């Protein structure tokens, strides 16, 4: 082992780890307030991470136009979290090198779990905007908050819609409904599907005719599953898709002429993503997806302060991306706006005072972006009934808001779906 190699080791270590152990950049110069942003910017989830960033940047600019946070301009220190190790490591960097006291993000359960542990250990506030793992708030970690409902909330809303809105229009009682559950097998799909199954069975006595999980990254053909489902003859298909699997299922169902009364999904991926409409055009008509508000949403149904910020948000996203906000934009944006409201009230990022401010917030539905209200539980979870969710439906190339009816001017069509070529 030569001394040369030794030199290489030491030199590399020294240079690559940031020019020395004390190269802490710390909080930005006066006039700016820096928070950490942890999102998957590379890897499989990159497309969602990018939309989150867009939503965050738009709302950051809106916040700064309105005076920033605690009198200072809001700025981001961004970190890429591709996998759990990276998430933990980058969280560490944000805290130690960038000196942030608040970290927001993170989209995926595998990432938020690891990163929030790191934050909690350093007494840094973790402000989660979209991971839906139900166990996130149940780990006894302090200063860990989630602005969005978790997977159980999604399942809850979906079944609510199926039982109270769809069943009567099929002339069936909820316990006469046959439901087939199909889902991709990541933490997201499993979380939502399991909670939906639970509520469907225990509260409404719906009949579960099938339960199937698959890996969306390796799925090439849904024909075998569809053939099986044709024989099981479900009324409603509860399908949580992630990307291509949604398109594959819908397209191949049409090819096989698989008929059923409704398909319900939840979330901003798969059926709830822009790509689904782009892939299928008018063929996408009829699919329901639980999401944040889309076109048709009645601003008037919101409270005045909610109307203002929702309109500003929509306009800004439209200007930046050319489209109506999509789910990822809305979750990230709403999360950041809510953070601003808390900081306005707390006037500090001291964790205890911050926590007090969080707990003291109590706003009814319709108060902010997405028409959300706020009420955090003791474990830092925003309440299901304040985080109003909406059922959207694909109608002629657009995902429009159809439920709850008091929030929208548009109505659901094609209930039940009927023949494939009849959905115009």
């Amino acid at each position, binding site marked *: 082992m030569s001394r040369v190699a030794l030199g290489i080791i030491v030199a590399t270590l020294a240079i690559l780890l940031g020019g020395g152990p004390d190269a802490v950049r710390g909080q930005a110069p006066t006039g700016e307030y820096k928070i950490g942003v942890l999102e998957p910017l590379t890897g499989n989830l990159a497309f969602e991470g990018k939309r989150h960033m867009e939503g965050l940047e738009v709302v950051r600019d809106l916040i700064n136009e309105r005076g920033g946070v605690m009198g200072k301009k809001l700025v981001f220190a961004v*970190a890429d979290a591709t996998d759990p190790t990276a998430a933990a490591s980058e969280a560490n960097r944000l805290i*130690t090198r960038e000196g942030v006291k608040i970290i927001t993000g993170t989209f995926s359960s595998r990432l938020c*779990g690891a990163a929030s542990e790191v934050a909690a250990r350093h007494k840094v506030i973790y402000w989660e905007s979209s991971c839906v793992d139900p166990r996130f708030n149940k780990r006894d970690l302090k200063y860990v908050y989630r602005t969005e409902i978790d997977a159980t909330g999604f399942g809850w809303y979906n079944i609510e819609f199926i039982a109270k809105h769809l069943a009567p229009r099929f002339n069936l009682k909820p316990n006469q409904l046959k439901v087939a559950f199909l889902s991709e097998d990541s933490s997201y799909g499993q979380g939502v599907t399991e909670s939906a199954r639970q509520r469907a069975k225990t509260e409404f006595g719906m009949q579960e005719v099938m339960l199937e999980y698959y890996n969306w990254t390796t799925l090439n053909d849904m024909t075998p599953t569809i053939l099986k489902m044709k024989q099981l003859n479900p009324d409603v298909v509860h399908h949580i898709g992630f990307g291509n699997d949604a398109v594959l299922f819908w397209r191949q169902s049409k090819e096989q002429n698989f008929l059923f009364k409704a398909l319900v999904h939840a979330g901003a991926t798969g059926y709830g993503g822009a790509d689904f409409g782009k892939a299928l055009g008018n063929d996408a008509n009829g699919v329901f997806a639980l999401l944040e508000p889309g076109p048709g949403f009645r601003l008037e149904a919101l409270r005045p302060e909610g109307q203002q910020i929702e309109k500003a948000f929509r306009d800004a996203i439209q200007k930046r991306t050319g489209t109506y906000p999509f789910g990822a934009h809305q979750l990230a944006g709403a999360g950041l706006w809510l953070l601003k409201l808390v900081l306005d009230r707390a006037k500090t990022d001291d964790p205890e005072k911050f926590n007090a401010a969080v707990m003291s917030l109590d706003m009814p539905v319709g108060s902010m972006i997405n028409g959300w209200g706020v009420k955090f539980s003791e474990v830092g979870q925003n309440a299901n009934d304040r985080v109003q969710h909406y059922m959207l439906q694909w109608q002629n190339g657009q995902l429009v808001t159809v439920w709850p009816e008091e929030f929208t001017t548009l109505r659901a069509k094609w209930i039940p779906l009927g023949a494939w070529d009849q959905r115009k």
Partner: protein
Amino acid sequence: MIARLRSRPGAVALFGLAALTPLFVRDAYFLDSLVLILLWGALSAAWNVAGGYAGQVSIGHASFFGLGAYAAALMVTRFGRGPWLGMLVGVVLSLGAGFIIGFLSNRLRGPYFALSTIAFSQVLLIGVSRWRGFTAGGEGIPVPFRPGFTTLGLGHIAWVYMALAAALLCYAVEVYLERSRLGYRLAGVREDEDAAEALGIPTRRLKVLAIALSAALTSICGSLWAQYVGFVDPTYVFSVDLSVKFALNTIIGGMGTALGPYLGSILITSLETYLRATFSGVKTGFAGIYLIIYGTVLILVVRFVPDGLAGFASRLRARRAHA
């Protein structure tokens, strides 16, 4: 013992530096990076036992890593016991898996063996993802942090020493292989299996032994990792990306050398961390640039320095000696 230490100045320097660092540096990010360097180094050294010393190049070592990680996580969350017990269970499971892979290595060579190890790790990935009732499936397992040694709830400084211990363990095994009769016989298997067999060396048994040993060490590190990062997700812990990383560090550092894996880990882990830290904040949509750089460096190093940094250093030394 002093003589032995003196014969390996590189190792003394490396591990010594690692041991001394927490006394001078308190920066948590630096220490975290050090832990990762040591841990990935240990994992690469474990891989080296099978890949470098026995010549069995597997791209499926994540199988053992994942088994170790899950065993520790499940033991804590499901059975309410400590992660050390989980580590033990992980080792037992990985020995079993190691025997299976060892069996495969006796039937297959080169790229076929490599492909079969990939298939094995994917079978485990899918199996664990589906077994929702036991492993929480695709949702993964959050591992709780409970301060204390028995629960492996350690602070940054303690983790440096824990990772160092793992690194030293794997290093010791490597050194043992270099100096012992077992090691010489393995070298025979590695250089020319047919000739070794002709000489009466029980090649099949030795290969299985090497792989099983490698598996056990990998599993131990996997259990430690689970407690360090705190979230076990099947698509990550059994991934081909991880398997490749273990092999990669060793190849870049020098296969079949004891210090090689650690040199490789220093270079690669530092590069990864540095690039990610520097380029994450870049305009949205350009985050992939650091991976392009990473991939290109990979191609270049593998091509131009195939015997790794350690080999490069030895060649330099030899050249100087003859100058």
